[in-house]
């Protein structure tokens, strides 16, 4: 005799999402369920309570995409961290960067990484890039109550689409909206200035080495005008974190490449001697 709910197993198997499994069997482990009750914001918003991650830039280049993040986290007017990393590999063919409330963003990143690996292990194939973007959008949406209290997280997803053989970019809003971006995009407090720089520096079909220089320079411009974005720190030898993704997979750009790019910009600008 077939048990009554044998057919129900089929519909339950439609989702192999790790996040949905957690929600069903271990709801306390989901980032969106971690808070106990509603937060009572002091003076209207909880934004000043925890470190805030700042600027992320991302762009396509010939044969792939790149994502770069500065190394600063702030709490109000205080620099909370000079070493924070805000760009992470999602899986072999995707990277994500986070801007906004740092703790929630790091939790979200960890959940997203496990989500992709879990799918890959259960299904035996990788999730499509559109699938990854949709899963990330739904995770951002679940954080909406916290976002309304001032603890918003806005990720940026970049990946190599193995079907279309090209790099693609996705941005998100706190309500779970998912938008595909063309050419380049940036998020975070310094994004306006980074975007301005990218408009002049980005060209179609950049090669990878040139794209890395463009990314470092746009972050330099963002740090120049936004106090919450950190520039290259020569004293502490801190450079932005950059990942590139192409058909061979995601790669973290080596420190010495970043150092060369950052020192090159500092030297060119010192020589130019411009004030503004």
């Amino acid at each position: 005799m077939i048990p009554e709910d044998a057919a129900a197993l089929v519909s339950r198997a439609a989702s192999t999402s790790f996040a949905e499994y957690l929600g069903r069997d271990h709801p306390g482990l989901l980032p969106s369920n971690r808070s106990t009750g509603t937060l009572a914001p002091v003076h209207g918003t909880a934004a000043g309570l925890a470190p805030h991650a700042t600027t992320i830039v991302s762009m396509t280049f010939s044969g792939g995409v790149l994502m770069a993040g500065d190394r600063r986290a702030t709490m109000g007017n205080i620099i909370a961290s000079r070493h924070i990393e805000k760009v992470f590999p999602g899986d072999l063919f995707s990277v994500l960067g986070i801007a906004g409330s740092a703790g929630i963003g790091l939790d979200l990143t960890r959940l997203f990484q496990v989500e992709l690996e879990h799918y890959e292990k259960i299904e035996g194939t990788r999730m499509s890039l559109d699938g990854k973007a949709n899963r990330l959008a739904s995770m951002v949406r679940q954080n909406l109550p916290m976002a309304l209290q001032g603890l918003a997280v806005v990720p940026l997803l970049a990946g190599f689409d193995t079907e279309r053989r090209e790099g693609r970019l996705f941005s998100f809003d706190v309500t779970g909206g998912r938008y595909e971006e063309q050419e380049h995009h940036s998020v975070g407090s310094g994004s306006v200035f980074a975007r301005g720089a990218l408009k002049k520096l980005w060209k179609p079909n950049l090669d990878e080495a040139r794209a890395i220089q463009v990314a470092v320079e746009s972050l330099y411009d963002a740090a120049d005008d936004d106090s919450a974005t950190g520039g290259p720190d020569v004293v502490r030898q801190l450079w932005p974190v950059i990942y590139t993704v192409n058909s061979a997979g995601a790669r973290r750009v080596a420190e010495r490449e970043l150092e060369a790019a950052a020192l090159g910009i500092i030297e060119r600008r010192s020589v130019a001697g411009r004030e503004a």
Partner: protein
Amino acid sequence: MTQQFYVSPEQLMKDRADFARKGIGRGRSVVVMACRDGIALVAENPSPSLHKLGEIYDRIAFAAVGKYNEFESLRQAGVRYADVRGYSYAREDVTARGLASVYAQSLGAVFTAESKPFEVELVVAEVGETPAGDHLYRLTFDGSIADETGMVVIGGAADSVVGALRGRWTKDLAFPEAIRAAVVSLQNDGAAGQPAHPLTSAVLEVAVLDREPGTTRGSRRAFRRISATEVDAMLAEGGRA
């Protein structure tokens, strides 16, 4: 009212064990062996997509024989267990010992409580930084768990495969040699008295757990499937030597 006949617990357990053994005996064997480069897993499996070998976590793999639907559900449950454990604690807190013990509990519970036992036999393998850190656990349908060293064979004709493998296996083998030894031994996987049947890459499923995935591939995930062309190359190399 119908009267139930008395069946002694011994008889009940024996009937269930015989039933499970009969189901497992129909399947082809799987070899899991530790060697110098890591752990090699070799199975005879004509399907390229319905796997008998699977990845559980960074350094942990799964091998099974028996009914596909039953061991596949156990594999998926194992992946969930490992991912939840790694997500809520830390990645290094996921161990083969922990996983093998929950598998043993679940197989044991099904064996005694459900209307039919699982017709499966499993191996949970974890590769260590050094050969001394390797762990191989063999789990049978009734929830018994055995901690094996070096190599383990599961499946219907496991004894004849072990016999063939014993002379070929040493702990210092590299992957190509280990895989060749496993394939040659699996050819003895027939009913007693039957001649060895040749195996080609088309009917083989091969995977490895790399000992140092970080340095060789830049990944923390040790599990890697070996493609049919790679298997062909390994087998051809042995033919020449």
